[in-house]
């Protein structure tokens, strides 16, 4: 999407609404859930090694990228994508049907029985 403003990547989080949305979307993982408990409640607990923390952050679910887009652009892009999807679905159906054997197509009523010519034997 070229015509958009990417908050997550480029914006310095000056928009409060975006910031709120981003914060709301920030996801937490097992690591994120457990670390504050360990740090706050038991000082005697050995802190997690840097390796484990790095590993935790590698597997940690990332916040979704929130982007502000012009409504008109959004409508245009949606229309384009839905049309491409529809066209692909129709062509996929056509290709799929063409791969089916003659008897299956006849049973489905997609073609009439061919009594004279050679029978289609599948793909």
């Amino acid at each position, binding site marked *: 999407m070229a015509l958009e403003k990417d908050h997550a990547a480029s914006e310095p989080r000056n928009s409060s*609404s975006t910031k709120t949305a981003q914060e709301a979307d920030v996801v937490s993982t097992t690591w994120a859930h457990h670390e504050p408990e360990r740090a706050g409640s038991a000082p005697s607990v050995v802190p997690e090694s840097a390796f484990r923390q790095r590993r935790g952050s590698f597997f940690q679910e990332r916040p979704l990228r929130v*982007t502000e*887009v012009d409504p008109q652009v959004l409508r245009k892009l949606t229309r384009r*994508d839905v049309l491409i999807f529809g066209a692909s679905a129709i062509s996929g159906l056509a290709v799929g049907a063409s791969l089916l054997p003659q008897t299956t197509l006849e049973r489905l009523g997609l073609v009439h029985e061919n009594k004279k010519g050679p029978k289609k034997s599948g793909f």
Partner: protein
Amino acid sequence: MPSSIQLDREQIATSTPESQAGVLVARRHHLLVRCSHWLNVPILVGLILSGLSIYWASPVYQHKPDPLTGNFDPLADTGIWICAHVPGLHQYSSPPDWVYNHLSLGPGMLAAALRLHWLCAYLFMLNGLVFVIGLAKGGGWRSLLPRRTDLRDALKMFSYYIGVPVAKLTRRTGLHPRFNTKYNALQRVAYFSVPVAGLLSIFTGWAIHKPMQLDWLTALFGGYDKARVWHFWLMWVVISFVVPHVILVLADGWDTLRSMIVGWSTRIGKSEGSRNGA
């Protein structure tokens, strides 16, 4: 071109206040993930239709031949039962073939079914690769990783779904379990286990296809016959995922379905499928 899309609020000052603001969207699915998701539909249909035609030629499950009909296939029995009990089907020409006529390419089509099955199987493997690349590039794999609390949370979600029809009937609002991740625990379990089932289907398929060359793989699944049983039941695992998946997507609304077509969602601050967990 970030500047070209920034909303010029002065230019559209005559518009309604709602149209002045840009729409906040969250990117949900990578293009490759979306493509592979939808390509799975025709591929799985082809695999199941052709797979059942192959099954007809040599059923995985067999019972002692019926003394009257000689039939040994439980699926043929199912067809006979359906034709005997469903109104309008009493005159059906070949009751043992009813299931195969409706859920497969048809009986007596082993060669065509095998060809189609392998075409779809190769496409399925290729598509799986596209899915994995899409997950890696988009970082979506992190959302699918199981967590320690998933089992408990998945049970909570499951009990919520069970309670939804009752809540609808009694006109009460069911309390949706809270979660702050992209997917809820039940979705995560499903979305993680289905690719695993797909992978196992591929392995069992190879074990059946090349039992001599890949004897170690066949042995891993307990032999040729057991590998066929695995393969058969993995199909049912996929079907048992797809049916509620489609129902829940439709129940969850346009945003969820659209996000798998266009890649983004306007549901900001809520997790995907937060109402119904498609």
